[in-house]
């Protein structure tokens, strides 16, 4: 008599679902035809209401977390309030035309409506934590690209932030958990 006891068998790990055939064919075709970044779907260039130069700030020794306060300690990296911009800039080059706009926002108590550059689509159900990645030693540039050399920050050119393959490859390479519940809940 064959035993029907399921408990005797090892628990199956959730296998990766087969990719839809269409996506597979498409990625093969695109990958073979042109692997260069230029062939990726064009991402609209993000423009901001006020010119903010990441490269200049980086050169002056202002680290990412000085403005993106939660990047090492919270789930969301966030962006500081205009008061903190003004805390430096009311003394540092207050006459620069872009800085003057910032100071005007500060005096009017009007928040600056910066445009978001990087996000993961809400429909994906991913609960991303910046803190977890910082604790694991992941640098900002790994996901966001070399923002420090850009004037206006743009989405990374080499990958999409909501590309799960890209996330999972990195998790596998670094022996991070690839349990679904690590990110999707």
């Amino acid at each position: 008599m064959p035993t029907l006891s399921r408990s005797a068998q090892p628990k199956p790990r959730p296998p990766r679902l087969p990719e839809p055939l269409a996506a597979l064919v498409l990625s093969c075709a695109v990958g073979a035809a042109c692997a260069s970044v230029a062939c990726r779907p064009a991402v609209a260039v993000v423009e901001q209401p006020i010119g903010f130069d990441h490269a200049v700030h980086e050169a002056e020794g202002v680290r990412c977390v000085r403005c993106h306060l939660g990047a090492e300690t919270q789930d969301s990296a966030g962006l500081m309030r205009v008061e903190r911009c003004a805390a430096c800039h009311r003394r540092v080059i207050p006459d620069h035309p872009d800085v003057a706009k910032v100071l005007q926002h500060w005096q009017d108590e009007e928040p600056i409506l910066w445009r978001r550059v990087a996000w993961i689509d809400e429909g994906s159900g991913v609960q991303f934590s910046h803190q977890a990645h910082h604790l694991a030693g992941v640098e900002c540039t790994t996901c966001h690209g070399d923002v420090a050399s850009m004037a206006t920050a743009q989405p990374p050119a080499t990958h999409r932030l909501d590309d799960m393959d890209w996330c999972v490859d990195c998790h596998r390479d670094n022996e991070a958990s690839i349990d679904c519940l690590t990110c999707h809940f």
Partner: protein
Amino acid sequence: MTHWGMAIDVDRCTGCEACVVACHAENNIAPAGPEEAADGRVRHWLRIEREYVGEFPDARVLFRPVLCQHCEEAPCEPVCPTYATYHNEEGLNAMVYGRCVGTRYCANNCPYTVRVFNWFEPEWPQPLERQHNPDVTVRQSGVMEKCTFCVQRIQQGKRAARAEDRELRDGEIQPACAQSCPTRAIVFGDLDDPHSEVSQAFESGRAEVLLEDLGTRPSVVYLRGEEPR
């Protein structure tokens, strides 16, 4: 390794339903509204069941919060065609919304009837939409959902411990139901740690599981047996 488990003291539960409310608030569970509720389509991840003990005039009512039992041999798992529900290494019965295609086999196979289906797009009467928990996905219509043991709090707790470079402490992670319980009837913790409060509750001799003869091996036990005061 960690194995999450819960012990619910039925003798302490007063049936106040604070846990039900806390669960709704924590996990972005949409209220059903009167029409859907009348059709049996309430979306509680946690409900209070009544149990009458004894004969009149010595009768009394026991209240029993029933939630996903996170069974070791979960009947919901092998019937899912898309592996949207599976068991993870920490003993959690996981539910991945992105994989769910809404066959509802899992709910039909759950002997505890703790899985709820989103028949319609979830709606919150204003202004409840503004109190969504940002750490929990807002589900869409057509997917199954159920108690997660507040996995978002488990992940946060683990991160907090890692940030301070220490081990998790017993009782540090509490699901919303346990946190809100005024009589502290619900205890949550690691069953693999023999010193944890929940492990000792499992070994107290007062523990019983629901529908034990089905062999589902739940990670939730109910404590009862104290004499009424």
